[in-house]
């Protein structure tokens, strides 16, 4: 990992509260899908973590939602402004060349790491289904979706695709068309929790990207821990360093993350 200043190439409002940030430059070590960066947004004391949504042509892409004060300030930045970034951080999604059929399941900004993952998988000529859940049609970032994979949508209000939770949609899809070799997920905790259940039921490995409040982002503060199974029961592991990608089987899913 390294710390460096990136210049903003683009910072645009996509849909509803969703924004796309493009940073100019590169890391010494190329990031892999599932990794994230830690951005300093003045005047806030702590950095803010964001998944890498794409990386190529000397450009780093971030997909973010305005949820609070720092993301609000971030949305006001303009092309040409600089941001200090630490990255790439964490472990990416494990990718295995034996997988032929792949499900990507994402909701909200949780699709960000999956977009990057799609970018890298798409070249491999695999069978990829991207399940995309959103609150309503207006929240869907259509123009970011790479060409060449199958998309299945669901919205809470039925305004686009199926009506209902994307996990259920995926489950029905499995019932009809069979299960994939692997599932990759990103999104709200409750969605990932449901995904974990489905993957267990179908005995299909699933890897998801977790989120948590972070201070260091580099594994040195133990602030971002989550319960992960070990030999004797469980222990607190760091989302930033031991994750953010975890096998759903290892995670102790709770009501409050």
């Amino acid at each position, binding site marked *: *990992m*390294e*710390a460096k200043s990136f210049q903003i190439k683009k910072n645009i409002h996509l849909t509803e509260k969703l924004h796309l940030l493009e940073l100019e430059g590169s890391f010494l070590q190329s990031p892999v899908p599932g990794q994230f960066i830690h951005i*300093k947004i003045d*005047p*806030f*004391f*702590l*950095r803010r973590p964001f998944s890498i949504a794409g990386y190529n042509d000397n450009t780093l892409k971030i997909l973010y939602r305005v949820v609070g004060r720092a993301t609000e300030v971030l949305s006001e930045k303009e092309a040409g402004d600089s941001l*200090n970034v*630490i990255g790439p951080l964490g472990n990416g999604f494990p990718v295995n060349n034996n997988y032929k059929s792949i499900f990507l399941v994402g909701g909200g900004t949780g699709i960000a790491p999956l977009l990057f993952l799609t970018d890298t998988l798409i070249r491999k000529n695999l069978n990829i289904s991207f399940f995309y859940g959103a609150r309503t049609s207006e929240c869907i970032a259509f123009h970011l979706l790479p060409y060449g994979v199958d998309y299945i949508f669901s919205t809470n209000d039925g305004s686009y695709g199926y009506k209902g939770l994307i996990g259920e949609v995926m489950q029905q899809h499995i019932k009809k068309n069979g299960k994939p070799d692997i599932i990759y997920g990103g999104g709200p905790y409750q969605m990932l929790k449901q995904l974990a259940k489905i993957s267990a039921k179908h005995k299909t490995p699933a890897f998801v990207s977790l989120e*948590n*409040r*972070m*201070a*260091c*982002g*580099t*594994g*040195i*503060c*133990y*602030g*971002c*821990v*989550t319960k992960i199974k070990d030999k004797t029961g469980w*222990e*607190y592991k760091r989302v930033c*360093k031991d994750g953010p990608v975890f096998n759903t089987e290892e995670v102790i899913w709770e009501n*409050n*993350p």
Partner: protein
Amino acid sequence: MGKQSLKIALNKLNLKTPIIVASGIFSYGEIDIGYLDYKKLGAVVTKTITINPKEGNPQPRLWETPSGMINCIGLQNPGIKEFIRKKLYSANIPNVKTIVSISGESVDEVKKLTEMLVKKDVKVIELNLSCPNVNRQNLMVSQNPEDTYRFVKAVKEICRSKTLIAKVSPNVTDITETALAAEDGGADILSLINTLKAIAIDTEKRGVIEGGLSGPAIKPVGLKAVYDTYQKVDIPLIGIGGITTGQDALEYILAGASAIGIGSALFSNPYIADQICETLTVFLERNNLKNLSDATGLLNEKNKTGAKKSRKKH
């Protein structure tokens, strides 16, 4: 830059720079965070180790506050045995001293911890006295001068030939009393301050986050602790609390610190060590001072009057 040296001696502890990474900030020094310039560091204090493993507190463990943060990690650590087996030796950054931080709820516990570390020839121990004392409900050891004295004395007896740093809490009526008790107990160096007790209210999720406040917000409180303590004790001070820039570090030194601890700012400012070295060097140059020790306490009343307030011994 000129002949100015940032080398500093705190009693027997010689450091190549006055920059110490504070306890709990840098894990056990085993992780290469890449962006920190290790050449600029004098020492790294490990996360506090306890006798038994501690799983730590549930989430949330972090909360941002105005110019600061609250943490309630709850001293998550693998316990002393596992620490010695797995972390102690991986904690050696070339040319940077490792200081092992320990904490216990009773004199027995801290004695055992010290014995084990002395056996492994650990040369510098920091006794974190912000641990709740098992005999006093809710009170931390360093919230009581007598306890502070007892704990420090017991540890020092076991590690006479080593350097003992006592780290005290600012959550007291008069921090100089704790400082004096620690000095009388045999501490070679004092670290101050640890975090301020604080809470945050999460109105959205309707929760209360109880923990320790750190960051720039507490700098004025830490500076006062160092300023006041410098007037009372003879042992050197490591000033900690809200240091985020070179200017902050300089202020601590002028107030009376011999070295400084960087804490939560390390999470956000990757250039902090470089900036501190730069600011201190420039200050020494401009003021024609050769050694950093000449700057310690330069703006402290004590160095103006020369007089030290009278005190009673423990």
